[in-house]
């Protein structure tokens, strides 16, 4: 009973805090200092139509490198923890129920479309909403659909590792090129900025974001493949 009372009190307290936040909210009628800088300088300095992408890949590119590293560490740790339970060969486990007709046919139809959407999202990251992280997650959901249809399907870890490490190396390599040929680490102006809104514009952003997309997709896929290969614990 006392526990329940405590929970109710906690909820009331949280409600009071949020009510205070909502009640005291007044929308800004102008951008603050750093937001104004980004809004005014992105178009001519970076050349990206999507300001969020310009911030993520160029202005705050180092943070993105950190995020990608954290994701890589997560995938590596998942692989390390699950590596003890790997199934030896095929069919050592129990008989799996067959995937339904709907799931099998739906997967055959949807997987190419989902892969195409994922690639579209990260290739157009500097023009439309979305980018490497979203595109990579969409790619991984196609892999997940494949694994749902056939849980015994093996996805080559060598291929995933090659894609992942190549993408990481190219990302850092482009960043280092920025030190020598442009203003600093991860500066996108090593390539011509081009005209605002064109596919080949915004310097190195489309290349960097495509490799981030591949890297994120490979990391999520390796986590899913590891989960799928694990013997029941």
């Amino acid at each position: 009973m006392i526990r329940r009372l405590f929970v109710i009190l906690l909820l009331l307290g949280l409600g009071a805090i949020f009510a205070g936040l909502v009640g005291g909210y007044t929308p800004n009628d102008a951008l603050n200092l750093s937001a104004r800088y980004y809004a005014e300088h992105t178009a001519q300095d970076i050349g990206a139509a999507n300001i969020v992408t310009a911030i993520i890949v160029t202005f705050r590119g180092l943070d993105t490198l950190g995020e990608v590293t954290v994701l890589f560490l997560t995938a590596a740790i998942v692989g390390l923890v699950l590596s003890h339970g790997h199934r030896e060969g095929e069919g050592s486990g129990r008989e799996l129920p067959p995937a339904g007709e709907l799931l099998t046919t739906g997967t055959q139809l949807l997987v190419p479309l989902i892969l195409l959407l994922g690639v579209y999202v990260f290739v157009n990251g500097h023009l439309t909403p979305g980018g490497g992280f979203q595109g990579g997650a969409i790619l991984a959901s196609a892999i997940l659909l494949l694994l749902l249809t056939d849980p015994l399907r093996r996805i080559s870890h060598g291929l995933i590792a090659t894609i992942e490490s190549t993408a990481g190396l190219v990302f850092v390599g482009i960043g280092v090129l920025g030190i020598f040929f442009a203003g600093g680490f991860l500066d996108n102006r090593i390539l011509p900025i081009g005209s605002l809104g064109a596919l080949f514009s915004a310097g190195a952003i489309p290349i960097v974001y495509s490799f981030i997309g591949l890297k994120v997709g490979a990391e999520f896929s390796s986590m899913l493949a590891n989960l799928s290969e694990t013997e029941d614990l």
Partner: protein
Amino acid sequence: MSALLIEMSLLLSVTMVAAAILATRGRQSLAIAILAAGLVSLLASVQYLLLAAPDVAMTEAAIGSGLTTFLFFFVLGRVRGGERD
């Protein structure tokens, strides 16, 4: 923010709370709880869209309501298949 937008996001919030209660307190099967949790994420991504943050909305839709829901179903299938009784 216009009145219509505020009404829409209020409606979405109420639906989200209802789905969240269904996900945590519901007496139905686990599959319905997983679907309700996915619905919370999906409606959250609509909220982000209403707040003019399409990038965040996309991440939420792809990871929160897409990958996580599928992953829960995947794990549910494994756990069910492993029952020995």
